[in-house]
């Protein structure tokens, strides 16, 4: 019993390490796009987010049953960011600075990761039309070249609330 558990643990650790070595860079890239940190400098917040998501994937490793660990980690990352997104509201010099955290999340899942609309909607608990609207808006904001108005830090705000400068067409 003890031997079997030890063998299982070492196998899991080996597989997990190989997985992180292969997919870690791309996952960290996605996480840094979400937190808004520039990719060239220290990505401490993105690393912290990814660390939590990876730990959850590790804890689930033996029960993945054919599910792709990359997909699993990506969805953990999305769920974590959906909950904590409002911490990363202020622009920090990343590529998606002009967007709100939720727009960033939808854009990264849909365009950077290529997740299907339906799957994105299910992961975020939103209707598909809403995801499409957010994505369309995010793309047009990114192409318009207008920098986002820096919003004053608000207490008690949620990730869903958009700053006054960028509210626009979103209902």
């Amino acid at each position, binding site marked *: 019993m003890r031997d079997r558990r030890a063998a299982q*643990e070492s196998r899991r*650790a080996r597989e*997990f*390490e190989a997985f*992180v*070595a292969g997919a*870690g*860079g*791309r996952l*960290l*890239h996605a996480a*840094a*796009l979400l937190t808004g940190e520039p*990719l*060239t400098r220290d*990505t401490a917040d*993105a*690393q912290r987010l*990814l*660390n*939590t998501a*990876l*730990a*959850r*994937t*590790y*804890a689930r*490793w033996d029960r993945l049953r054919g599910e792709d660990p990359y997909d699993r980690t990506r969805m953990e990352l999305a769920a974590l960011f959906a909950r904590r997104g409002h911490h990363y509201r202020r622009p920090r010099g990343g*590529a*998606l600075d002009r967007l709100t955290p939720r727009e960033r999340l939808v*854009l*990264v899942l849909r*365009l*950077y990761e290529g997740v299907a609309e339906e799957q994105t909607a299910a992961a975020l608990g939103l209707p598909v039309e809403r995801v499409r609207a957010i994505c369309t808006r*995010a*793309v*047009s904001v*990114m*192409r318009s070249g207008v920098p986002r108005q820096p919003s004053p830090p608000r207490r008690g705000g949620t990730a869903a609330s958009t700053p006054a400068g960028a509210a626009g067409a979103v209902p």
Partner: protein
Amino acid sequence: MSSWDRKEDEVRRLMEGPHPLLPPDLADRAAGRGQRILRRRRAVRAVGWVLLFAAVVAFGVWAAIVEPWTLPPTDTTPPLEGW
């Protein structure tokens, strides 16, 4: 290729580029943390089983002593109280 696809591609290109540097100990740290989550979960499950077992034993002892399935005697009236 529609203009919408072109716009999407443009934004996609903005997000691409070289991946940020992955700290070499990230996998180890995440694995350690995941292992702690597993151990905690295992401990919680063990406590649950112990509690269930204790409840079953307690019920058994109570049932053996009180024997709630035996009928009260029918040839004596129950004592009258509060009359």
